[in-house]
Structures are given as structure tokens and as C-alpha cells.
């Protein structure tokens, strides 16, 4: 099952980590890169399958997404919404400053 091809290298792993907003310690990067190459090498088997006339399947239910009327039905629960926030103030979530 080992995969000889390198699909992703460390710079690519850095880029994906950035897109994923994941801090990956430097010491773990090599083994993570290996794992990702093994997994991506494994899933590359799908190239053997002829899918030229196949529509992608996103949902197995076959039903259309139901619509509902646009009513507010769970309002006035500000306290509950904020209850698990790491930091909140005056009814808002608080995050580190984003503009100078």
C-alpha cells in the first residue's frame, strides 16, 4: 500500500495547513506529509474507474430540499447563544482585534 509518488511536499502541506487554519508544529510536518501522501496515493485508485458519462452524486435522498416560511421562531435566546462563548460582551462574541 506504500506509495512511491510524492503528491504533496512540505510547502504544500504548509499551504493546506494555512487554508485549514491549523497550526502544525514543525516537528510533525514530515510525518504528516508522509501520511497525506499515503492516503492520497490510496485514493488515486479512483483514476482506474471510467466516469466519463457519470453525474456526481451529492445526496442519496433523492428529495428536493424542503423550504419553510421565513419566520423567526427561536428568538430571544441571546443568553443561550452566548453561553458557551470563550469571550462575550454586551450581547456580542468577542474576538481579537482585526483592524488597526
Amino acid at each position, binding site marked *: *500500500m506504500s506509495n512511491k509518488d510524492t503528491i504533496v511536499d512540505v510547502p504544500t502541506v504548509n499551504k*493546506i495547513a494555512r487554508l485549514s487554519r*491549523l497550526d502544525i508544529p514543525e516537528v510533525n510536518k514530515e510525518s504528516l506529509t508522509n501520511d*497525506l501522501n499515503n492516503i492520497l496515493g490510496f*485514493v488515486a485508485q479512483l483514476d482506474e474507474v471510467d466516469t466519463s458519462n*457519470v453525474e456526481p452524486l451529492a445526496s442519496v*435522498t433523492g428529495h428536493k430540499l424542503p423550504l419553510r416560511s421565513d419566520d423567526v421562531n427561536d428568538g430571544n435566546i441571546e443568553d443561550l447563544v452566548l453561553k458557551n462563548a470563550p469571550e462575550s460582551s454586551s450581547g456580542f462574541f468577542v474576538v*481579537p482585534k*482585526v483592524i488597526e
Partner: protein
Amino acid sequence: MMSELLDLNLVEASKALKNKEISSLELTKAYLKSISDTSSLGAYLEIVEDKAINMAKESDKKLIDATARPLEGVPIGIKDMFCTKDIKTTASSKILENFIPTYESTVTQNLWNDGAVILGKLSCDEFAMGSSNETAAKGNVINPWLKNKKMSPGGSSGGSAAAVAARSALAATGTDTGGSIRQPAAFCGITGLKPTYGRCSRWGIVAFSSSLDQAGPLTRTVSDAALMLNSMAGYDQKDSTSANLKMPDLMDYLDKGIKGKKIGIPKEYTQDGISEDIVKFYEKSIGWLRDEGAEIIPVSLPHTKYALPAYYIIAPAEASSNLARYDGVRYGARQEASSLDEMYELTRGNGFGDEVKRRIMIGTYVLSSGYYDAYYLKAQKVRRLIKEDFENVYKKVDYILTPSTPTTSFELGKKQDPLTMYLNDIFTVPASLAGLPGISLPVGLDKSGLPIGIQLIANSFDEAGLISTARVLEMSAGFNFIADGAAK
């Protein structure tokens, strides 16, 4: 007396409660004792003793005044993927270690509405990503079988399976994305049922892969699974993929038999690498169903081989999107930092375990610009071919019989690389991708004394027929072994 109480399965206990032969309080206390006696297995993350006692007392009132509901007074465990109001829900992740939901999942609410008593929350792989329970932030659960050898209970619903097998829960809920109910049920010698996608509401269940996630019961018997699913299932407006179809009372289908039913045996499920003992019991199971009047028909599901690679694109892709919500802002742990982006990266880097990070990375990669068509779209196309394989076979047969897993349980801590671990789900993933209902039930023990599970797969929304067929197999197999690590 305690041992006699623990001997009762869910259906028997429910009957004894309704006949006032036992009370919910004594039954619940017996299970709380059993949780403490088997605590070394690590199945429970949270035990809610006071709540359990109060619910049991309420149930006893209803049992006396004859207003008892279908699950009145039965003590059960809940996988930590289900949000439970005012009870810590962590999905076995450090990032949710202090999360206390302010609302209740639909499935658990359905269970409480039908009278069930909560014992506590059960461990699982982190965010249900794993097949051995080893990715849980607070450490693995131990399989009660061959207890001293420290075998894996399977995953991701490892705590649920271990608790039912160890008799520290009369039944438990699980979630199954690629095999997370059926594989641990097989490893722990119990019954695990994954319903049709859409049968149980996903509302309030911590999301992993939304086009695949489905809740279901882990129980001692097929009848117990029927009784649990009766309560768990149902249409829910709060889940846009919930099926607006009434499920028949599954208890009516226990003794329908299988005379004249056609059972498909897919040739792709007996490949190299599958244990000899499992093949032996698979062949025995085929014989048992034939003896009970079923017609056995060889079939082919030609794209089976591609199910696992398709799954390991689709599930991580959906996971990477779903887990974006853990941003240290609205709930969950936060790592302080001077900028917002740094806060996100440190929070997520510190809060997620290695397997979850790998899957987020794979998912982000396959969805990223330039790779989307080659990976994600390709996998969705293969998913359609896999679904069509099943549709073609169900023109010829009523049910499909396969082994549940290629091997029985393995020892914990023998580090397996991620890919080898993924192969555990090779027989359960195809039905997940097709959204079909499947059940794993124990049919025997292998040479070392570990349980062997066999899987039945039905067509969409035919849980009733699945129960009838599984019940026949269960009766023929007569599996009545109890794990050596179970409470006495």
C-alpha cells in the same frame, strides 16, 4: 438480584417493568453499580447519576399509573456525539472539553419522550473519526472481551459497544458514517443497526460528514434494536435531509421469517486478507438462511473496491467544512493570540487530535482550487456508480449478506498507520455511501474467543425486512456468550 437484573435484555426488562416485576429505580441502580464495577474499561466520559435516579423515579410513577411509554424506565447510554441539554458533550475532543449544550438532539429527545432513562455519555473516537476508539482525547476504551489482553472495542462508537457488551448500559445510541455502529458492534459481540440515511434526524448530532452521518442503536439483540429504533427514528423539520416517511412498528416484524426471500452473496466481499474464521462463519450464516427457506443468489457489486477510496475523499471533504465551525469564537476552547488568524490556528492546532487534523488536511486539499475535479467530483461520480451497483442487485434480491469486518478485534496500542486502520471499514463503507440500512449481529467466536459479526444490508427504508431477516440469522446462530469483562 443484581445479576438477574443485568441478565434481562432491553425487551425483557421493558416487559418486566410494565408487569411491575421490577422497578426502574432498582434497574437503574443496578446499571449505575455496573458502570462503577466496569469503570476500568473507560466506556463512560460522563455519568449523570442524579439525573438517572430522578428519571427512574418519574418512570416508576408512570409505570404505576399505567401511562407508561414504549421505553419507560430503561437505562441507556448516549454516544458523546449527541448534544444533551445541560450535560457536557465533547465528541471525545479536547476542543469541546467544556461544551455544555443548551439544547437537546432530536434523537435523544425522542428517547426521553418515550420514557428512557439516561445513564451518561459514552466515549468514541474524536469527532467519530476512527475505527478503534484510540483517537478519543481522553484515551481509548477497552473491549470487555479478553479483557486482560486490552483489545480494541472498535470505533467510532467504541464506548457504546463496550458498554452494551459489558452490561453497563441496557442499550446505547451510536452514529455511523462509514461503519461506526456496525464495526464496533461486531468487535464487541453485540447488535448494531445503521438505518437508512434520513431515517433518524441529524439535528443536534455533532456533524462529521453530513451526507453520510446517521444515528442508530447498539443493543444486545435484534429485538432490542427494533425497540430502540422505533423511538429514535422519525421525521424532523429541523433536518432538511430527514425522510418524511412513516416507519412501521418494527416489533411487528420480528417473527415474519424469510421463506422465499432472496439473499444476495456479493463475490467482492470474500477477498484476500479476510480472516479464515470469519469466512467460516460467513459460510455458516449463508447455510442457516438457506435452511430457513431463503434463496441464496450470487451477485456482484463491481465497484466495491472503490468504495473506501471514494469515502476517504468525500468524508474528509465534508469534515473539513463541518469542522470549520470550531474557531474559538462561539463555543469550544480558545487559545489566546494577538491576531484573529493566529487565534484560529492555535485554537484548532491545539484542540484537534492528529487523526482529525489529517482528515481536515485531506478534505481541504481535495476541495482546493485545481484539485476539486480530480478528487472530490471524481469521488462523487464513483459514489453514484456504487449506489447503482446496489440498485441493480436489489432488482434481483431482497437482502445482501456480507461479513461485517475483515478481522475480529485487535490489540490496542499496536500502532497501525492511518491507511491500515481505514481498511477496517472496507465492508461497511459501501452501504454508507449508498445510504442503505445495515445491521451487524454476532454469530460466533473465533479461535481466540473474539466475537465475529455478520452484516445484512437492505434496500432503502426497508428496516422492517432487515429486522425480520436479522432475527432469523440471530435465532440460527444462537450466540449467547457474555464477555469476560462484563458486569456480573
